[in-house]
């Protein structure tokens, strides 16, 4: 069994998912985790698929998608990764303010320096409003208040606002 990391990216139109997944199904591949979204009008798919097909066979099956030049496809074999259990606390970090270079790099740099692990992150730009929302695991032995104040200081330096709230999971 092989795991393939597949990306499809390009001009949005109806049918991209249907055509991609039909080709993958034809090879007997199972789509495991995936994310598919519109990024500023470009459709972007990232998929981890498992099956017996070789990377070359997957690339060949997806070649028709690239025919008119509007979509880029990449296929790469990847190792199986065990999902790591987090022992720390999970947070949602929101940053918003006027658009300027360096917001993502500065904020994520500070979070990384504090041992925070970003597990999901979305950015959006609309007019002059820049928005970053990240899900962050902070280490159990970390000083959450200190990390938050370091990030707040970095945000102040950028002229953007930062808010943290603990990610809630209601166990039922």
């Amino acid at each position, binding site marked *: 069994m092989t795991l393939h990391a597949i990306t499809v990216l390009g001009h949005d139109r109806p049918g991209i998912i249907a055509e991609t997944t039909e080709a993958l199904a034809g090879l007997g591949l199972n789509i495991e985790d995936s994310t598919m979204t519109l990024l500023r009008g470009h459709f972007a798919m990232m998929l981890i698929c498992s099956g017996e097909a070789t990377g070359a066979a997957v690339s060949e099956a997806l070649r028709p998608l690239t025919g008119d030049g509007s979509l880029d496809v990449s296929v790469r074999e990847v190792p199986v990764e065990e999902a790591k259990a987090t022992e720390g606390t999970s947070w*949602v970090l929101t940053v918003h303010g006027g658009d300027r270079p360096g917001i993502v790099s500065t904020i994520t740099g500070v979070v990384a320096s504090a041992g925070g692990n970003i597990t999901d992150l979305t950015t*959006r730009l609309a007019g002059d409003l*820049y928005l970053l929302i990240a899900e962050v695991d902070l280490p159990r032995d970390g000083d959450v208040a200190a990390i938050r104040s370091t990030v707040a200081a970095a945000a102040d330096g950028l002229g953007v606002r930062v808010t943290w709230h603990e990610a809630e999971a209601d166990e039922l």
Partner: protein
Amino acid sequence: MTEAQPAAPDGINERVRAWVEFELGVTGRILEVVTAPADVLGTDGAEVDATDPEIVQLAADLIATMRVSPGCVGLAAQQVGVAARVFCVDVSEHPKTRDHHGTFALCNAEVVDSSRNEKAREGCMSVPDFTGDVKRPSRLVVRGQLPGTGETVVLRANAFEARALQHEIDHTRGFLFLDRVAGAHAIHPRKTYL
């Protein structure tokens, strides 16, 4: 000795329900609504004197501006460029509303009790390009002062009115719904249809 605070009546607070903007005695002006990333939207509002003529005028202006804005169920001072703890709401026409108090404005409002979290998608005139999924209590007790008379009122709100009140109180403290979204996939570009 602290002043005794009125208790929240069960159900609708009839004083708030009966309140109408004509009590303010001034004509509201239609103001421009500011959008993020304007600094004022992230600024904690100053506590106000609810009997101050400027605050009375501001409350009238907020209601007038809310009235002419399609779909608008509430407006806070920050949204018209003033960092003050004043807002108005009127959810009476909204389909998600259960109980409601009609049109009213509050000064220095605070949540004194809340329960029953529910998640829903919110939008905001000051964040016109996005909506976001926000979990908020659906039952609420809010205390504030009515502009004009300055009388302190305590009211129970539920469902959509509770959500609107928290959204507006957040504005008066310098928070947007963006600060409350549930996660990295909880923000959505607002759909535009040609």
